[in-house]
C-alpha cells in the first residue's frame, strides 16, 4: 500500500497558495474540515476561490476565513447565515456564484468521474440558465454544466487508514466523498486514523486512490447549527 499520512494540517496545506481554488466538504457545519480551515486561517493564504455548499457562520467554518478576508470568490448553493459574508458581498469585496445544490454536487461528481460536462434540468427557465447551453432530450430541457476544476479538495472523514481509504459517518458524508474524487490534490482530515487492514474494504466510501494526504485531526468541535430537540417528559 501507498502511505498518504502527513503530520498534520499545517504540513498538509503547505503548498496551497494565494489565488488557488479549493473545494471544502460539509453541509452547514456538519462534516466540515475544521483542522484544515484553522490551518488556512493561520497561514493567511488569500484570494481563494472556495467551492462549498455553504459559507459557514460568523465564527465557525468558512466564516473564519471570510473574517480574515481570505476569500475572493464563493461558489455555493446557500449562504448568508453569516453577517460578515453579507457585509463583504454588499461592499463588493466578495464575489458570489450561487448554483443549485444538485448542480454543485454533480459538477463535483463530473470531475471525479472524468466527465467534462453533465446535463441537469435544474435552473432551466431561470436566471441560472443565462448564458448556458441548453438541450432537449426526450422532450425535456436540460442545461449543460461543466465539471469543476479545483486545485485542492479539503475534506473531513470519520475514519481513515494510512493508505487514504475513508469512511464517513451519518450525514457528515454529504459533499465530502464527491469532492474527494474531484480535487487535483485531495487532503483528508479524519477523526480516527488507523492502520491498513483495519477498515473493511466493503465499508470504504472513498478508496485511497483519491486521497493524496491524510492526517488525524485534533480538538473537533463539531458545532451544531440548529439544535432542535424534544424535551424528555
Amino acid at each position, binding site marked *: 500500500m501507498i502511505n498518504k499520512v502527513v503530520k498534520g494540517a499545517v504540513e498538509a496545506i503547505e503548498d496551497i497558495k494565494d489565488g488557488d481554488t479549493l473545494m471544502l466538504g460539509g*453541509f*452547514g*457545519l*456538519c*462534516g466540515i474540515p475544521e483542522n484544515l480551515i484553522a490551518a488556512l486561517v493561520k497561514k493567511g493564504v488569500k484570494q481563494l476561490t472556495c467551492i462549498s*455548499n455553504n459559507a459557514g457562520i460568523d465564527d465557525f467554518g468558512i466564516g473564519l476565513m471570510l473574517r480574515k478576508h481570505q476569500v475572493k470568490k464563493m461558489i*455555493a*448553493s*446557500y*449562504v*448568508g*447565515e453569516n453577517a460578515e459574508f*453579507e457585509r463583504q*458581498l*454588499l461592499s463588493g469585496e466578495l464575489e458570489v456564484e*450561487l*448554483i*443549485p*445544490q*444538485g*448542480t*454543485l*454536487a*454533480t459538477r*463535483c*461528481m463530473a470531475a471525479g468521474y472524468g466527465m467534462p460536462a453533465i446535463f*441537469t*434540468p*435544474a*435552473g*432551466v*427557465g*431561470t*436566471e*441560472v440558465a443565462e448564458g448556458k447551453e441548453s438541450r432537449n432530450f426526450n422532450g425535456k430541457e436540460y442545461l449543460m454544466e461543466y465539471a469543476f476544476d479545483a486545485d485542492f479538495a479539503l475534506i473531513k472523514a*470519520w475514519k481513515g487508514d494510512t493508505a487514504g481509504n475513508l469512511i*464517513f*459517518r*451519518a*450525514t*457528515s*458524508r*454529504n*459533499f*465530502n*466523498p*464527491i469532492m474527494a474524487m474531484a480535487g487535483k490534490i485531495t487532503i483528508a482530515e479524519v477523526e480516527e486514523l488507523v492502520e491498513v487492514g483495519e477498515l473493511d474494504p466493503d465499508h470504504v*466510501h472513498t478508496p485511497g486512490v483519491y486521497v493524496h494526504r491524510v492526517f488525524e485531526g485534533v480538538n473537533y468541535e*463539531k*458545532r*451544531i*447549527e*440548529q*439544535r*432542535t*430537540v*424534544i*424535551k*424528555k417528559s
Partner: protein
Amino acid sequence: MLDKNGIAKRIAKEIKDGFYVNLGIGIPTLVANYIPDGINIVLQSENGLLGMGAFPFEGEEDPDLINAGKQTITTLPGSAYFDSAMSFGMIRSQKIDLTILGAMEVSENGDIANWKIPGKMVKGMGGAMDLVASAKNIIVAMQHVNKLGESKLLQKCTLPLTGINCIKKIVTELAVLDVLPGGGFKLLERAPGVSVAYIKQSTLGKLFAEDDVPEMFLD
C-alpha cells in the same frame, strides 16, 4: 381559513402509502406530524438521508446527523446515508414520489418563485431548483395572499423564478387548487368558512371555480 398546521394537515392527506417524500423547510416540515396511521412513507433529506425520524431527545443530539434545514434529527430503522451526488441523482431520476415545498409566488402555468427577492440579501436556492425541475409530483404549501392582502397566485411571477411549468397542486390557507395542464388554477376545495367569492378575489391568476366547490375535510 387554515393556520400553518391546517395547511400541513390537508397536505398530509395527499400522501399515499409507500411514498418517498422530500419535505422543504417551513410548513412542509410540519406535514410529517399528520401522516395518517397505516400509511408508511420514507422521508428523504437531500443532504444525504432516507428514513428521517423525529427530532432527538434533549442531550441525544448528534452533530453528524442533521437534515437539509441543518436541524438535529434522528433516523428510523431501515434508513440509509449517501453522498450529495447520489441524493440529487435520486431526485433527478424521480425516485422521490412527492416533493412538498413553500413558495413566494406561483403562476397559472405552474412557474414557481421561492428563492430570491431583488434588493434583499440573497441566500441561495439550495436544492430547490433541482427539486422543482425534477420532481414528478410537487405540492406547494403557501400563503394565498401576502401581508398587504395581495395575491401570490399570479398570471405571471414577478420574482426571479425557481422553476417553470412544474407545480401541479397548491394548498393555501384558503384553498386547494390544481394547476391545469393548459394553464390556470382549478379550485378544488375551500378552507372551512371561506367562500368561493373570497378565493376568487384573492387570486390574480386565471381561476376556474364551479359554484359548489366543497369545503375541505380535515379529520
